[in-house]
């Protein structure tokens, strides 16, 4: 039995102390800019340096003949670092105040260790950059700020240190502030705060300095305790990458199917409509189990188990999202990368890419540019990226990834490169240029070079540009006799007349050949839709506008058709021909409604088989004329 708490008061205190939240800080800098002194002071003043640790570094400093207590020894934990007197690798330090607990990732500042800086910055909520008040903004300060910006650390604190050596002069600080604000305007950091400090004397570190009455802001520790970071998480876009399927083997739970993962974005609730990507179908959340038991809501960074209402074919690497708000499903993307190994990256190189819980093979399609980390300027024409270089590349993937832009969601937009031969982590990537949401295909088409995996042959890009065409698939769905084929034929007519290759795939016609072996139950309909979608994909890939008219009554089947296309970087439009059932039955050119109602045929959509209305069609045709319908489709197609 656990020991009982002795009295309610003690237990309440215990829990109150455990209510603080967590702030992750990254610092970058070298020995001489006072970074270690600053960290040492934060740790010391918050009682996070223990007496035996202090005695130890005092002794080592004395033995080395330093003449002062080198607080860098607190974080430089490796033999090589202590021997050379430099920081090589990231060290993690911890301190706490009653309000918050803090993890400091202390990273080396030299350009040679950019990759270690990127490592420390990748998980940070806030970064601290130090500037020596005597020297002003140096190249190194710009590099640190640029990396903080590239890694999208939302809060940047610039500590203008050694104010004691410039007489605590306001004008001096103001000049540096102007310079920082000028280059800060070019950074992607929403919150930049400057604080004049003296780490050595403790001015504005923990206590407000009496020697700089002109400074009206808070001291550093107060700022760290109060900066608002919970709003930095993306609570809008539901993203849940699946890590692991939970399937108990004992008889008591033998029906239990749960999907474990850490929420990467948004708020999940039981009863929510969700879609499982890529193309696993639609269902609802049945229940959520957190570490403490069932919960009503799951949000980042909670680790939970999601139970779904329907049994779908779900496995590790799939992503749960909302039907109207989904990540892009793509096989090609662009990313800023930081290269982390000696052997340079070249166009055409192949690596493994790990993104959330999915690992796929990847090929570097193109090195787009290399970025000067000191100034931020871009150099086009680079063909390789070496150790510690940062640049932009386009990548083609062997299987689709479900991604968001890094700027929108750091978890859904980040990836690492792994060398398959050595298993080393060789690069870090931040996805750019993909927009979240149902229209993700637009950006993936507009931006992706559409290089196909089979690198030996003619690429889609070359084919399309040589022929002057652009492929796409338009998917017409609706009840039988709703007018899908009529509108599709009219669109086909208009496109071909304008010299744009277009081809119609009609559900009824398919059943005379490609899908002639299939019936009309749910499985057969799913297969029918899959074949039609695959055929359309080939046409679209060739540069033709494929016009599919198919009842396709189930949302999950249409979603699959969509992901077959978006997964291959092809545009895909759903046109919902929303003609009322009574109107369809009235038209009924083949007399099928009458026969279904008479019971002569069964499984007829709209009579004894359901039609699920599309949740998010790209075009809805209600009572429009055929001409108006064609205009609507063409406008959306925007070729």
């Amino acid at each position: 039995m656990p020991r009982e708490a002795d009295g309610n008061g003690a237990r309440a205190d215990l829990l109150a102390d455990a209510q603080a939240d967590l702030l992750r800080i990254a610092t970058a800098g070298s020995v001489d800019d006072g970074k270690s002194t600053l960290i040492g002071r934060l740790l010391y003043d918050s009682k996070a340096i223990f007496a035996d640790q202090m005695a130890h570094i005092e002794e080592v400093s004395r033995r080395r003949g330093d003449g002062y207590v080198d607080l860098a020894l607190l974080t430089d934990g490796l033999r090589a670092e202590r021997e050379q007197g430099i920081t090589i690798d990231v060290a993690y330090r911890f301190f706490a105040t009653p309000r918050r607990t803090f993890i400091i990732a202390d990273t080396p500042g030299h350009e040679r260790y950019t990759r270690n800086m990127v490592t420390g910055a990748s998980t940070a909520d806030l970064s601290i950059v130090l500037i020596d008040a005597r020297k002003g903004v140096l190249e190194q300060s710009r590099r640190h700020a640029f990396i903080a910006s590239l890694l999208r650390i939302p809060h940047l604190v610039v500590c203008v240190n050694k104010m004691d050596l410039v007489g605590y002069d306001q004008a001096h600080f103001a000049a540096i502030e102007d310079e920082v604000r000028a280059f800060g305007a070019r950074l992607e950091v929403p919150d930049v705060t400057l604080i004049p400090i003296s780490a050595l004397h403790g001015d504005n570190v923990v206590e407000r300095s009496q020697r700089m009455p002109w400074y009206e802001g808070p001291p550093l520790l107060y700022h760290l305790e109060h900066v608002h970071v919970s709003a930095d998480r993306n609570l809008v876009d539901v993203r849940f990458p699946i890590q692991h399927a939970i399937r108990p083997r004992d008889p008591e739970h033998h029906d239990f199917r749960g999907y474990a993962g850490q929420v990467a974005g948004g708020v999940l609730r039981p009863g929510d409509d969700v879609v499982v990507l890529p193309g696993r179908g639609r269902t609802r959340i049945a229940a959520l189990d957190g570490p403490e038991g069932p919960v009503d809501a799951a949000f980042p960074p909670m680790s939970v188990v999601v139970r779904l209402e329907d049994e779908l074919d779900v496995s590790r690497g799939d992503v749960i999202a909302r039907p109207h708000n989904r990540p892009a499903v793509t096989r090609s993307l662009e990313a800023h990368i930081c290269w982390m190994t000696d052997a340079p990256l070249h166009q055409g190189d192949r690596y493994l890419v790990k993104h959330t819980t999915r690992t796929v093979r990847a090929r570097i399609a193109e090195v787009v540019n290399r970025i000067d980390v000191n100034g931020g300027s871009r150099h086009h024409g680079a063909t390789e990226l070496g150790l510690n270089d940062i640049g932009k590349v386009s990548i083609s993937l062997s299987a689709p990834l479900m991604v968001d832009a890094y700027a929108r969601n750091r978890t859904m937009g980040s990836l690492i490169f792994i060398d398959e031969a050595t298993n080393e982590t060789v690069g870090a990537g931040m996805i750019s240029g993909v927009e979240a949401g149902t229209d993700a295909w637009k950006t993936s088409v507009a931006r992706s070079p559409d290089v196909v995996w089979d690198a030996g042959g003619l690429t889609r890009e070359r084919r399309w540009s040589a022929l002057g065409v652009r492929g796409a698939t338009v998917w017409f769905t609706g009840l039988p006799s709703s007018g899908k084929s009529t509108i599709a034929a009219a669109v086909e007519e208009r496109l071909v007349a304008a010299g744009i290759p277009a081809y119609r795939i009609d559900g009824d016609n398919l059943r005379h050949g490609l899908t002639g072996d299939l019936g009309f139950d749910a499985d057969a309909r799913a297969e029918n839709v899959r074949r039609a979608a695959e055929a359309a994909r080939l046409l679209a890939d060739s540069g033709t506008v494929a016009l599919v008219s198919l009842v396709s009554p189930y949302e999950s089947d249409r979603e699959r058709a969509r992901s077959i296309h978006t997964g291959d970087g092809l545009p895909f439009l759903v046109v919902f021909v929303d003609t009322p059932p009574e109107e369809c039955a009235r038209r009924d050119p083949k007399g099928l409604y009458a026969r279904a109602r008479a019971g002569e045929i069964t499984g007829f959509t709209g009579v004894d088989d359901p039609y699920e209305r599309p949740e998010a069609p790209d075009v809805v045709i209600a009572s429009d004329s055929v001409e108006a319908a064609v205009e609507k489709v063409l406008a959306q197609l925007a070729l």
Partner: protein
Amino acid sequence: MNYELTHLRTLESEAIYVMREVAAERERPVLLFSGGKDSIVLLHLAHKAFRPASIPFPVMHVDTGHNFPEVIEFRDRRVAELGVDLIVASVQESIDRGRVVEETGPRASRNRLQTVTLLDAIAEHGFDAAFGGARRDEERARAKERIMSFRDEDGQWDPKAQRPELWNLYNGRIHRGEHARVFPLSNWTELDVWRYIAVEELEVPSIYFAHPRKVFRRDGMLYAVSPYVQLLEDEEPFETSVRYRTVGDMSCTGAVRSDADTLPTVVAEIAATRITERGETRADDRASEAAMEDRKREGYF
């Protein structure tokens, strides 16, 4: 609702995420369980990570034969409660088979011998990942180690060739014969561990609470009188109220004077202490300035 997690719940979710990644990607993980506070939290998190399924890997204890009997009793009871398989890797057997040679003299300890027993057991069972309860706040070499830390074919750690560890994208890929050490509690402090034990009302071995014990003073620390330690001439045993901050061998783990006999009083004591747990109670770290780094390179926990 503000959708915020406390730091303890954030650390909990992070640790669970790490454990699930390893279970999903590795074929034969094992959890190193000593019956100490950190591995108690680790095992509890493993239980949470996979429930209602059972924990999908065994636990292993490297048993020096010099453990506190209270801890061994607790170990056996806890694994039985959770229904996990327990593998005991015995240092005594390594000695008997001639894999290691026992130190002699009054300061003899089996601490360093454990590394060989541990690596032999990992090889024998074909484990490709081993969860440990080590924390970065414990010691300066550990402050530098990755959460997912790679070990070569000889079980060795190369601190200068660590894989960059970015975001929550852990690269646990290895070649046959290599393994990964995984530290889900890397970002926890000693105080976090105790607060978590208190909040979750976890049982811990009784030696963590103040109790009367016969001890003697050596090198500024209080050691338990036990069959595993020879007293030096000037060492006088006496009885006093002590508790343990860490659980290791009786031969190298010191006790602290304390009256803290409940979880809240233990938490209060830890919150107020000015000395690190390893500095106060572990002789094994005092061998040299880089004692831990050196042992870790060899394959220690």
